[in-house]
């Protein structure tokens, strides 16, 4: 029987590395539904979970898969699902439930080109705004973007750690290319992997309030069956978890949910910079497109253009302040992404007119070439 952490050197796809990262993070429940190009995550989990004491279930659709994930997490088990665009759309309903009930869970979107059924076997990054705003109502969310099979392994662990720490759904916004590409993946010793679990109640069962935040803004969580007799609802609720249909309750619930992110932004936000210190042109990218962007930055440097790369590891929350302060000193930004301008709009917004921001985008289905990016870097400014 294989252990949860497959320590060693492997050659595996991004989808498989995603599953292995989740297992290393202690995931014990996967609610699945087949969809290209995310199916391999479900396949790997279906084979691996029963051997580590976990459970895989293939649900009747992605709505059910997501509902089951939220239910499993409420029962105290680290839970996840993986899907692609059409399934991601169906999951939005219960991602919203997880946001409102502050239930930790991880959702992987192996993006393919859309809209609608689109190009099932070809990659894109067209769901980045859906990741941010896809479920109704106002909320904050964490979305990670891995660039390689190795990185998706670590981001799966990170996703569970963030989701448990802050009681929030965490999205891993990968894509078909990273998902299906085979690369070297090194899995460390289990003892080198730092795991986080949801904060547990600190007061007695009678006094416990399931939505009363601790100092860091996150409320300790009781799981079903622990004797706390909690009530959890997707209706607007107070700290006791009871529905309260008033404006005041709505305002204070929203404050509480948003505060978790505002108070902990510096612990959540993650970026990686390459040659940015002296850069005049900052290329902003994430996920597989950041590999193209890196090549373009190196090419630009060879041509004497001082370019640098800002790679977003958390696309959401977005590093607005960082872009804003860069905007004060750089010539401009180029955003590289496999859509026709989503994070590009965020860069523009954060740059606030202090520096121009251009897009090197693609409709989806094909990677962007470094030449295309270089062309924007050379002629855009």
């Amino acid at each position, binding site marked *: 029987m294989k252990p949860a952490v497959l320590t060693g050197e492997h050659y595996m796809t991004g989808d498989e590395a995603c599953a292995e990262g989740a297992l290393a993070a202690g995931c014990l*429940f996967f609610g699945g539904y087949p969809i290209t190009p995310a199916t391999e995550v479900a396949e790997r989990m279906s084979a691996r979970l029963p051997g*580590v004491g976990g459970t895989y279930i293939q649900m009747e659709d992605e709505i059910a*898969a997501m*509902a089951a994930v*939220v*239910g499993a*997490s409420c029962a105290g088990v680290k839970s996840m699902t993986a899907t692609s665009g059409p399934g991601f759309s169906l999951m939005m*309903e219960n991602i919203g439930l997880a946001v409102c009930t502050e239930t930790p869970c991880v959702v992987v979107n192996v993006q393919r080109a859309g809209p609608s059924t689109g190009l099932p076997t070809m990659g894109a990054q067209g769901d980045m705004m859906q990741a941010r705003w896809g479920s109704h109502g106002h909320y904050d969310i964490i979305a990670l973007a891995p660039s390689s099979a190795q990185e998706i392994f670590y981001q799966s662990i990170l996703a569970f750690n963030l989701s448990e720490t802050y009681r929030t759904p965490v999205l891993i916004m990968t894509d078909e290319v990273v998902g299906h590409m085979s690369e070297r993946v090194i899995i460390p010793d289990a003892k080198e992997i730092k795991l986080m679990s949801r904060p547990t109640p600190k007061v007695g069962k009678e006094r416990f309030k399931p939505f009363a935040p601790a100092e860091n803004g996150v409320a300790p969580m009781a799981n079903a069956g622990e004797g706390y*007799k909690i009530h959890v609802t997707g209706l607007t609720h107070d700290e006791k978890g009871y*529905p309260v249909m008033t404006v005041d309750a709505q305002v204070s619930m929203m404050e509480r949910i948003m505060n978790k992110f505002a108070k902990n932004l510096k612990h959540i936000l993650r970026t990686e910079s390459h040659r940015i210190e002296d850069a005049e042109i900052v290329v902003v990218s994430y996920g597989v497109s950041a590999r193209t962007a890196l090549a373009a930055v190196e090419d630009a440097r060879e041509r004497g253009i001082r370019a640098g790369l800002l790679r977003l590891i958390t696309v959401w929350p977005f590093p607005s302040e960082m872009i804003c302060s860069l905007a004060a000193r750089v010539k401009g930004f180029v955003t590289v992404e496999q859509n026709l301008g989503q994070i590009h709009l965020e860069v523009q917004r954060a740059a606030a007119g202090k520096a121009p921001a251009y897009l090197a985008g693609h409709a989806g289905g094909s990677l962007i070439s470094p030449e295309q990016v270089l062309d924007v870097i050379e002629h855009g400014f």
Partner: protein
Amino acid sequence: MNPKDQNKYEEPNMVDTPLHHPLDDLLRTDRIPHIWCPGCGIGTAFSACLQAMRTSGLDLEKTVMVSGIGCSGRGAGYVKLDSYHTTHGRAIPFATGMKLANPDLNVVVFSGDGDLFAIGGNHFIHAARRNMALTVVCVNNFTYGMTGGQVAATTPYQAKTTTTPRGNHEAPFNLPLLAYASGATLIARWTILHARDLTECLKQALQHSGFSFVEILSPCPVNYGRRNRQSALDMLKMFQDKCIIQNNASPADLEMDFAKRIVLGKFVHVQRPTCIETYDKTCRLADFSKGKAA
């Protein structure tokens, strides 16, 4: 004091009068009054369910109520157990995840006909097919009560609702037949008038190891009865006059005919391995049954 005020009706002093309900220990009394309308049958169905829980012998600390959206979906909000009020139609898949994650939990889904059989119909049939160990209690009031009385998948033929002002032209589901065809292993139908039979049946449903389904017919005088010239009492009278108890009746013969007869009883009670049992047997090696992982 104004002499007029002296004639005013005075509210009895509620503060000094302790009001107890025999099920208070299972109720979130700090959430009472509830939202259910006068004449509604959900309260009776709900108390039958709580009474059954109490007498079932289940460990109530390990018993969870999951509801969807709608009038009956508010059940989870009033029970003093771990309780989850989920999204519309999704109580069953939510409960499925919960049960699989912790098989020690007793998971009861308490919801309405619109929630479980229109928007949630797909989830119902698949949970029944899997013989997922859940107790599904459906209060069937023949309409969408919460939104003001629209046509449902259970609304009788020709009944008037706000979205069928000239009468419902569609056929309603025969819910026990649907449950039977899907693979449910305990199937029953009662009305809120048959509170004792209902409570006893719910107790058996809670103790049943597989997927159990209890349909509870209930009046919705405010949003259904009103448009069909039927008070709550009229419907109860109809339950009294037209219902016959026929245990083990064939699910195919359970279509409701309000003018002639409605068959009640426990129709199916069989044993079949549950989803968790078949998963453990098929997918796990001997030493890796739930909770024994290294």
